[in-house]
């Protein structure tokens, strides 16, 4: 009997070891890759200019630690606002089935860093558009589907995200599914999105417009002058359907103090859009610059020298704060890319893909700290 007991005990120990080994291996297999990243305690942005913002590019950033580090660096630079893209096609891959995992991760880390998130909504999923069309192509019969997504997004992020942008640069053909641009069509989309957003959260701020600054001539197949497009939006009854005008304010080769002119793309063109708002009885609404800035690529034709870019950028933040009381925030393009684009776009960034701060980052930080 003792012999049997000993045998059973030995076998039991052997099996226990095997089970333990199996459990470890199984744990390794199902464990998430990379270290566990904690959101961390809430932080506060220290800045002399609470209107400083940037457009982040975290949509395709997979690793949570990189998302967190990016947003930490935004705060450490002294920026309080971020614009981030939350593609409809990523969150609702099948009609009515939403996955907010990645969006939650970005928003939660941003809030922990003390940042205000402006969510840019767009990107049509395959199921909501005809085959062989681009992800900016949304047929009018599916505007309601986009409205449903807006409702779901606003409801899900109620209490966390208080600003949403409806679509991006609808005055460019490529952003309107490579069709002729259609201000009246965009207003129809805006109405549906606005109603759904307010139904989900009456306090959410709906940003309309987000027009590309362009001097496209009348009848151009590529786009429509943003000043013309905005007036056509008002003519189509857009006024009650946005709370804030989103503006893209690129400087190209001009300094931020260059005067606004209808035949020039520069930072102060924002004032011309503002004039159109006032003319249409919308002067009480604020503007938020959700894209903009300067580029210092050595050979892009619209680029400036790196030193000019730094001076212009700091001055732009300062100008908006001091001279444009109707401008709530200036979110410049683009804080960091997940990986180098290897195009002139890399020269819009403040931080390299591997988190090395560029001199412009340090200069904005110095300004934000009042040094």
């Amino acid at each position, binding site marked *: 009997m003792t012999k049997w007991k000993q045998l059973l005990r030995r076998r039991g120990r052997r099996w226990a070891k095997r089970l333990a080994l199996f459990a470890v291996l199984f744990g390794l297999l199902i464990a998430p890759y990379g270290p566990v990243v904690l959101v961390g305690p809430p932080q506060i942005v220290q800045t002399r200019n609470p209107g400083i913002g940037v457009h982040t590019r975290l949509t395709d950033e997979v690793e949570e630690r990189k998302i967190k580090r990016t947003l930490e660096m935004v705060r450490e630079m002294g920026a309080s606002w971020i614009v981030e893209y939350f593609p409809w096609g990523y969150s609702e891959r099948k009609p009515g089935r939403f996955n907010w995992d990645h969006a939650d991760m970005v928003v939660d880390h941003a809030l922990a860093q003390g940042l205000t998130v402006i969510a840019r909504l767009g990107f049509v999923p395959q199921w909501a558009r005809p085959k062989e069309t681009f992800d900016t192509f949304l047929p009018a019969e599916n505007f309601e589907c986009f409205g449903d997504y807006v409702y779901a997004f606003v409801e899900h992020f109620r209490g966390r995200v208080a600003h949403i942008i409806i679509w991006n640069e609808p005055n460019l053909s490529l952003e309107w599914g490579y069709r002729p641009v259609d201000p009246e069509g965009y207003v129809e989309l805006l109405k549906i999105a606005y109603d759904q957003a307010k139904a989900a959260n009456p306090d959410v701020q709906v940003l309309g417009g987000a027009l590309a600054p362009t001097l496209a001539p009348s009848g151009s197949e590529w786009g429509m002058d943003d000043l013309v497009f905005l007036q056509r939006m008002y003519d189509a009854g857009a006024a009650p359907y946005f709370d804030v005008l989103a503006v893209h304010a690129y400087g190209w080769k001009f300094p931020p103090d260059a005067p606004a002119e209808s035949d020039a793309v520069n930072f102060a063109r924002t004032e011309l859009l503002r004039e159109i708002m006032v003319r249409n009885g919308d002067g009480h609404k604020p503007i938020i610059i959700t894209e903009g800035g300067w580029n*210092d690529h050595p*050979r*892009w*034709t619209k680029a400036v*020298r*790196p*030193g*000019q*870019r*730094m001076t212009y950028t700091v001055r732009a933040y300062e100008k908006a704060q001091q001279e444009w009381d109707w401008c709530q925030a200036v979110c410049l393009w683009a804080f960091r890319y997940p*990986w*180098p684009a*290897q*195009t*002139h*776009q890399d020269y819009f960034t403040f931080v390299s893909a591997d988190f*090395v701060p*560029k*001199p*412009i980052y*340090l*200069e904005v930080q110095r300004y934000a700290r009042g040094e």
Partner: protein
Amino acid sequence: METEESRGLKELSGLMGRFSRFWSIRPFRWSRKRALVTTALALLLVVVGVLLWRSAHRSEDRVWERIQRSGVWRVGMDPSFPPFESLDENGRPVGYDVDLAQAIATCWGVEVSFEGIGFDGLLAALWADKADSVISALPVDPRLARDVAYSVPYFEAGLLLVVAEGTTDIAAPDDLAGRRLAVEWGSEGDVQGRELRRRLPDVSLLPFPHPQDALTAVVAGEADGALVDAISLRQFRQQHVGVHAVGAPLVSVPYVVAVPRHAPRLLEAVNDALVDLREEGALQRLEETWFGQ
């Protein structure tokens, strides 16, 4: 009586018997010897297959064949970066890269057709078969080495440490301890200068709005060295004397010719031509023509 034919048949049947015994699968037994021979044969087949496939694909280069057949080499270029490429008053491309393409084409006995393409779209033009090659002051991007093939470099445009003529005690960045370093504010030179100052806190960093100003400071004795790119240095030396680069580039930016990945013979021909042009002194002459040195 055993004829020669029947002996042959017997030998053949013996051979087949041995073969069938060796490979008999019924009853199947995996002897060590059989396993080894099978593995060796399989490996041999794979190696021969791979070699044959590679040689077949190596010899196939439709881009090169088309260039030879048509006598025209389509070169993609963004003519907005003088002195490498720009348009003259008649709208014709001119510059270092234009002359380089012409020189390579002359080696092959073909004509060049320049295709104007925006810089960001140059490599896409190769993939879309809008150009056979790209010559446009194009730096190597290692991330795209699977998508395009790069030639040997023909020009180094990287970041250089520049000192005044006659300076003998600065040969590397570490020799700048306790000295003044001029950079273009916000440039790659500035980034590297700040990095250097983290290692050597007593380096004084002097920012200037333009690389030419940083070099002027070196000539004037206001700075002990400057970190500028090789193109700015060459352009400065067109009109000034008194500075020269020391050491290897701190950040290397080699300009290369890009060709489609599936054009190995074209790549080989480009590389051969570049080596020949360098040996003949033609690349040096191009520098003299376009940078006046």
